[in-house]
């Protein structure tokens, strides 16, 4: 099978080093992965091509890269699944991290953020003589997060990191979840308080890029959502994010619908003087919207029919009551 690899390259040793693209036309086997074809280039076409790789079996996490613009593992991506009708595949280094050479990037920012979440178990009290006793259910859900191979694919495609490099990002937050969810850890509340700060769990925009990019099914965003839930449940609620989630829940329970008008003050915290600034900052948009007749209705919409409203409330009571 013929494939055209269009590789984003960069040689920092070259004078006036600039990124450039280079095409390789290869005859390869149908079972070849993107990584197989890059190794082929490195071994037989151009030994200067730099790419990190080792296991070829999606467990070492070395070969995250962008294939046709989206992050994945080179070794887990079959060529045949990503070639266009002309047999072309575009390969680039991951995003949101500085480039070193060709497909190799600097992972320092990645690891700095992992370090920032105190990524180690911190049990409380004396260690038991034997193992900690914990139900299989309390541990099994952590195996999915432990499946994270720290490849950086999620961080590469994170839309928040594109505009704010301070965001902890999906990998570090998923790692943090792994400890807050561990029954052996004694620092859950402290961890949640930390994660509740600026650049933490509430800055995720829920865009699902990390869920889509993760080659191991870790679904970092869903871990972030679980952290939000835990934080609210732990009584740490003095954030716009927590108030936002609570407000949406209250509105839907009350009327079956969102109430965008009231969502603003509820999120900023009506009686929170610290939030007054942000509240005022939101007003010009509101006034402009008002002039355009765009502002949400003053009397919020409801689902029609009393019985429907009751049914919605009943679901809330039943599900939330059980919690």
């Amino acid at each position: 099978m013929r494939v055209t690899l269009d590789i984003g390259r960069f040689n920092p040793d070259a004078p006036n080093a600039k990124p450039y693209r280079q095409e390789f036309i290869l005859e390869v086997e149908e079972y070849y992965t993107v990584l197989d074809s890059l190794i082929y280039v490195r071994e037989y076409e151009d030994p200067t091509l730099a790419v990190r790789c080792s296991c070829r079996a999606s467990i070492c996490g070395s070969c995250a890269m962008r294939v046709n613009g989206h992050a994945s593992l080179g070794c887990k991506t079959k060529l045949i699944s990503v070639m266009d009708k002309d047999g072309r595949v575009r390969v680039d280094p991951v995003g949101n991290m500085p480039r070193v050479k060709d497909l190799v990037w600097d992972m320092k920012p990645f690891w700095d953020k992992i370090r920032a979440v105190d990524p180690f178990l911190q049990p409380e009290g004396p260690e038991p003589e034997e193992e900690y006793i914990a139900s299989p259910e309390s541990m099994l859900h952590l195996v999915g997060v432990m499946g994270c191979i720290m490849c950086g694919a999620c961080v590469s495609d994170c839309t928040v990191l594109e505009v704010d490099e301070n965001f902890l990002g999906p990998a570090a937050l998923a790692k943090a979840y792994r400890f807050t969810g561990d029954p052996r850890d004694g620092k859950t509340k402290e961890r949640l308080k930390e994660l509740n700060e600026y650049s933490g769990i509430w800055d995720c925009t829920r865009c699902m890029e990390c869920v889509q990019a993760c080659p191991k099914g870790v679904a970092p965003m869903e871990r972030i959502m679980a952290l939000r839930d835990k934080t609210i449940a732990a009584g740490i609620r003095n954030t716009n994010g927590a108030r936002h989630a609570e407000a949406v829940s209250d509105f839907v329970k009350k009327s079956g619908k969102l109430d965008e008008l009231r969502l603003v003050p509820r999120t900023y915290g009506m009686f929170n003087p610290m939030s007054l600034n942000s509240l005022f900052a939101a007003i010009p948009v509101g006034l402009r919207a008002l002039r355009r007749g765009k502002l949400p209705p003053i009397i919020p919409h409801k689902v029609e029919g009393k019985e429907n409203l009751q049914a919605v409330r009943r679901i809330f009571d039943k599900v939330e009551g059980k919690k």
Partner: protein
Amino acid sequence: MAVYQHDVVVVGAGLAGMRATLAAIQKGADVAMITKVHPVRSHSNAAQGGINAALTSRGDDWDEHAYETVKGSDYLGDQDAIEVMCQEAGAAIIELEHMGVIFNRDEDGRLGTRRFGGQQRARTFHVADITGQAMLHVLYEQILKVRARVYEEWFVTSLVLDDNKAVRGVVAIELMTGQLHLIKAKAVILCTGGTGRVYEPSTNGLIVTADGQALAYAVGASVMDMEMVQYHPTTLMGNGVLITEAARGEGAYLVNKDGDRFMQKYAPNFMELASRDVVSRSEQTEINEGRGVDGCVLLDLRHLGRELIETKLSYINEVALDFANVNLAEQPLPIRPGNHYEMGGIKTDVNGRTPVAGLYAAGECACVSVHGGNRLGANSLLDTIIFGRRAGDAAAADAKETGEVKVSDSVISIDRDAIKNLMDRNPTSDTPAKIRLEMGKAMNEGVAVFRDEAGMQRALHTVRELRERFTGLGVHDKGQVFNTNLIFALEVGFMLETAETICIGAIARKESRGAHFRTDYPNRDDENFLKHTVVTKGPSGPVITYSPVTVTKWKPQVRSY
């Protein structure tokens, strides 16, 4: 160039390397870990099935584990070392659990086990089928916790000797800059892993290139039992990727093209869970005698049901789908024996010490020897944890007693010149990749599951020819930053050196034992070969000597499963 100084330098950041580092730090030493890839990229990741330990508190007996390990080793393992490993295993598991490893649990919330090959009892602790990865990441968490010094993506090019021929440091290239550094140390622990890439194909990652074995061999340490190369019974056809023994541990069948569970013939008691050498030979026999399917036999998991496959074997489920396009719940998977593990390695005592002062080794690159002629599944992770810790302890203790390191900063010039030569040389049509591929194929043909004199001689001949060609090799990449072309060339040099020790050890062992099965000498010969092959570098090439096997209480017996 920069010069660094530490008490203990650990080369390699897999399970053995990180465990050694943690141990030495705990003993108060100033430790640095040098690794050619980021720690969590290490190949310990790929260990899937689990880690063996007899937890005496729940009725298991470490003596039984030791006996089965001895039997698995085909009596070539040193029984004192095996006893140490098996006795300390239980505490090591608990320690790992306390560090944070998420071992699978039973209904009572205690650690659960599965059964592995060559053992009667289920004593394999595991994290689904990603045990190595789960342990590696937890050890790295501990490394971050103690803020250990890690030189990441530094490739060690040689060990540094002082005037008394003691190892007192390493020279390494920093990949990001291409700079060469001298790192002085009172003790150096090699934890660089196996020899997988000497073979093609192999289950091993591309980074598994026999670095430590070659580094140690070059400074006068010996390598032992290198001919004992394990072929894993279940590897994928195309790229040789591993399918865990846990599949069979959970009940999967091996069948030939007629659908027969052929292990009935070869190991009627243990069936699919006989030791790996036995299963691999049985498979190869079926394939050779025309009962295979396209050079493979079939691993059948269908009767285990989708739920078990998806929860306990989720990783191989993913691998089978990604790389073989097989849905394990619906179709049998074609598999075959493939290069997997090096039982031999740098000769050490139970504390990781080599006969060369200042030099230690642990993990797959070392040979204590606990695996002898054949390693039991799930004993490799145990080996790394137990002997990694012991080597770290010993190196830290010895470093305390060691005076000032007397090594001139100018020793670095030897490596600098050698690398400059390599870089300056014009590349020919020969490349590191071509040489490695030819070596790998020759080894896989001549020194594999079934061996004979002629085949092994052919492999040796090829390796020696390739060594000649290697001396003229140049590199294409003349750059400084992340020059993997240069690193690859250096690795091929290490592998060729090691391949030769494997070949000559195998040729000299005129018997069949464990993984070393000769069709021209099909029987075990305890009278002449119940001994370790020891290869040391002499002035004009490798020199073979032998050392006795330590037998404590298990006299060699006929081995059947």
